[in-house]
């Protein structure tokens, strides 16, 4: 049994973490004096010697620290952490554990399955959290690394941030609004509060021109007839509900985006819902964000739309526990709908969100995202040949090298193409051929990816991708595709693609009788491609994914230059062909819950080194490496 997080925490505690820099670090000064040829005559620096091979570093909302008003979204990025004697790829090969110091002890739902991961904790080099209450909060980052002998090192850094209560900032700038005369002291409106009667977008704009915090009465419906244009105010503002009952419903009664945030900063919009009133409109996009920074959209539901939540050129956006459904089909001249469409957005977080059923195109299309984290969310039922979650570079027209997606983490999501419409569930790669924009430093881990009539996942990442501890369930001929030779024509070939400790399962031969775990395309153009420690089970298949041979296999080479093992790609300690076709490696004949995939046989490999030590359920791997996503 792997070391669980409780034991891991005890290790952390015993190592005395919690301050910055750690108490056991040492310092000395360096002085250059008697300078000639420049000023001043003397300069000095301090050298800090850390006691472990790890130098932990992180930023909060892009700065060394941060303060904000509740609910406060913090984005934490540890990609500056160094461990040069352990790894050249700290983003991928170190283990990052965040503790947010929040009293919120609730847990995430993991896709459609009840989860057990605390919201007060996160794993990975990029993370995010929302503080719903005010106070002084300490964010603690524990970083773990291992040397070639398997010896573990850890170091810790903490930062304290201040979350200010809304009433402290907005007490004099608050209004309670409803469509039927709100009265101070009644229905949740405090005595002495400012009140206003509003029915349309114009009324809301008037309220927002005067007040930074607008409370909308719960359970009421507003036919907007236009857009609410959120203004730029100091400390942003708050737009949410008051009183008991369902979220207030905003009806897009005309063809306009109800929430427009153009070059504004720091808005918190939560507990409000949107619907199109049953009529199509090309501009019925509940949230349209352009430029600006540090917005939180939380606990909002979209019932029908063209683009549920869209952003462009935004720095800092958190989509938290939202539910977006009912995207448009292309009936008549309708523009197909997308649930989530963040583009060229830095510091993006999509947490605990559900986006479901885009009849024609992608459910979520994420393009040009830097330092993003998507976790504990569900993306399902894409359109024909489209993706439940599509991660791409941003490309406008032709060749465009300005919109790479970099340093992004996609974890603990439920990504499913259950539409039987023939698209990838998860796609990471270029927009299309002949684009120079590309993805790099991508981590896809601990996701459940299920495909229907195509791969559960396809990766065409240019530089450095870790695909680990995922469960891939497929009915198609492959579990994952690796487009390595140019990632589609015109893009750079892949460097550093590491596929390890994944579980793949093809339960039946109804759709095809051939299967390979990986479809490896043009590996001869790629370098440092490692496929190891994967647990694969595909009973009853009579040929490989390309209909060659007599049984399912680990790998099918494709393309024009498939490459040579141990030269262009490396295989180690994966399921053997006999295992792929052999005894079921877990107990359940019909695995459905994630725990059903816990291996009972073939569970331990020969010990090939892997870069991460945490499994699908967050258990730490130690000693010999287990096969598959779940540690035993």
């Amino acid at each position: 049994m792997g070391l669980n997080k409780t034991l891991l925490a005890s290790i952390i505690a015993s190592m005395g973490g919690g301050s910055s820099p750690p108490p056991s670090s040492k310092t000395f000064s360096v002085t250059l004096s008697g300078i000639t040829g420049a000023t001043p005559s003397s300069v000095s620096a301090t050298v800090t010697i850390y006691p472990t091979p790890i130098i932990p570093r992180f930023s909060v909302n892009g700065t060394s620290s941060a303060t904000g008003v509740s609910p406060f979204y913090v984005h934490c990025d540890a990609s500056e952490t160094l461990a040069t004697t352990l790894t050249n790829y700290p983003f991928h090969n170190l283990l990052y554990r965040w503790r947010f110091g929040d009293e919120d002890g609730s847990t995430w739902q993991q896709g459609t399955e009840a989860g057990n991961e605390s919201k007060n904790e996160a794993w990975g080099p990029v993370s995010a959290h929302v503080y719903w209450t005010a106070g002084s909060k300490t964010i603690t980052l524990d970083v773990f690394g291992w040397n070639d002998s398997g010896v573990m090192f850890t170091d810790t850094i903490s930062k304290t941030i201040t979350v200010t209560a809304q009433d402290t900032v907005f007490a004099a700038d608050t209004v309670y609004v409803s469509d039927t005369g709100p009265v101070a002291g009644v229905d949740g409106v405090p005595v002495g509060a400012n009140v206003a009667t509003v029915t349309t977008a114009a009324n809301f704009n008037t309220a927002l021109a005067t007040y930074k915090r607008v409370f909308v009465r719960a359970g009421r419906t507003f036919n907007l007839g236009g857009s609410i244009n959120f203004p730029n105010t100091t400390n942003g503002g708050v737009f949410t509900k008051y009183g008991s009952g369902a979220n207030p419903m905003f009806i897009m009664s005309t063809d306009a985006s109800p929430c427009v945030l153009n070059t504004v900063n720091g808005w918190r919009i939560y507990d409000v819902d949107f619907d199109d009133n049953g009529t199509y409109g090309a501009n019925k996009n509940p949230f349209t964000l352009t430029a600006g920074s540090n917005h939180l959209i939380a606990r909002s539901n979209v019932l029908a739309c063209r683009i549920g939540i869209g952003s462009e050129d935004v720095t800092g956006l958190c989509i938290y526990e939202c539910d977006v459904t009912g995207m448009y089909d292309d009936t008549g001249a309708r523009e197909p709908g997308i649930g989530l469409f963040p583009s060229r957005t830095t510091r993006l977080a999509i947490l605990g969100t559900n986006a479901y059923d885009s009849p024609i195109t992608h459910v979520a299309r994420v393009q040009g995202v830097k330092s993003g984290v998507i976790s504990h969310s569900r993306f399902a039922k894409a359109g024909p040949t489209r993706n439940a979650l599509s991660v791409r570079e941003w490309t406008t027209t032709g060749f465009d090298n300005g919109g790479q997606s970099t340093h992004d983490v996609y974890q603990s999501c439920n990504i499913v193409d259950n539409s039987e419409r023939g698209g990838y569930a998860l796609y990471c790669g270029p927009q299309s051929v002949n684009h120079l924009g590309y993805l790099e430093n991508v981590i896809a881990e601990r996701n459940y990816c299920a495909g229907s009539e195509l791969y559960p996942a396809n990766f065409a990442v240019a530089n450095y991708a870790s695909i680990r501890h995922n469960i891939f369930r497929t009915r198609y001929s492959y579990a994952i595709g690796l487009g390595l030779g140019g990632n589609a024509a015109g893009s750079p070939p892949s460097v550093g693609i590491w596929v390890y400790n994944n579980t793949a399962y093809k339960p039946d031969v109804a759709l095809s009788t051939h299967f390979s775990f990986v479809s490896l395309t043009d590996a001869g153009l790629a370098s440092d491609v490692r496929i190891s420690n994967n647990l694969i089970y595909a009973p009853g298949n009579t040929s490989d994914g390309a209909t060659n041979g007599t049984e399912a296999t680990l790998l099918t080479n494709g393309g024009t230059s498939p490459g040579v093992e141990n030269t262009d790609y490396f295989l180690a300690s994966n399921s053997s062909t006999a295992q792929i076709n052999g005894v079921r490696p877990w107990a359940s004949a019909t695995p459905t819950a994630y725990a059903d995939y816990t291996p009972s046989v073939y569970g331990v490999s020969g010990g090939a080194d892997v870069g991460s030590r945490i499994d699908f359920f967050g258990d730490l791997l130690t000693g010999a490496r287990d096969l598959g996503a779940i540690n035993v």
Partner: protein
Amino acid sequence: MTTVTIGGRTADTYPGVLDTVIQQSNPTATSGSVDRFQVSLAVAGQERKSLLQFTGLSNITGPVSVSSVVISLFRLNNVTAPNRLINCKKILRSATEAGASWNNYAAATPWQTAGALGALDIDNTVLATGTIPSTGNQRFTVSGAGLTALVQDVINGVVSNPWLILEVATATVESGDFDIASTQRSTESQRPYMEVTFTPLTANASMPSVDCTKFDGSVTVTVFLDAPAPVGGVSGTVNTADITATAGVDYTAQTGVAFSIPVGSASGTITIPILPG
């Protein structure tokens, strides 16, 4: 911002211009002492190119930020003819005023390809352009961003001061073989000069603090300059002192260690051994 001129006129800030012409029609001829030169292709196979070197740039002390460089030349012959476009490029040879000819860049030292055409002779990047005017007895200028950058690098000691070559922009034969006054011209006001506009920079040094681990073997501290090191470079002495670390246990002490940043560079590094502790 300061503007100086380098030329052979009394009014110029600094002296120091060398010039000559090389002639395809007379490939062994040297013309360093002649009071005029030409940039022309008036007859097929008889191209003329001019070489100039502004040695007076050495009088400007770097580091500087150069915003403008203009070479001013005086066309002599007052005969109307079409404008002629000319290019200015950098010569890669250490030419001499007295020895340069179509065949040689210095006495008895041939170009790789006669006429300064070889890859070892010339950098064919166009640094500046100019137009010889259609009528004479007037000045014209040669300028361009490449020339400005080159002069800045010369003053700041990043590169040595090269010879420049002026040549026709196209191989099309055009009538007219107009003379341009050289430094040897008796009428002083007609002599060539270079006008340089620059802002003196004083390099400010900084040395950010750094982190390392006791497993790293060494740590590198970098000294940054916000402008290139001037002529003579930047120098100083490195010393370390314990704060909570102990020399000899955690790191190797540095005492009176000489440090330098060469002219033209913007940074230098100090490497200090880190001990396992």
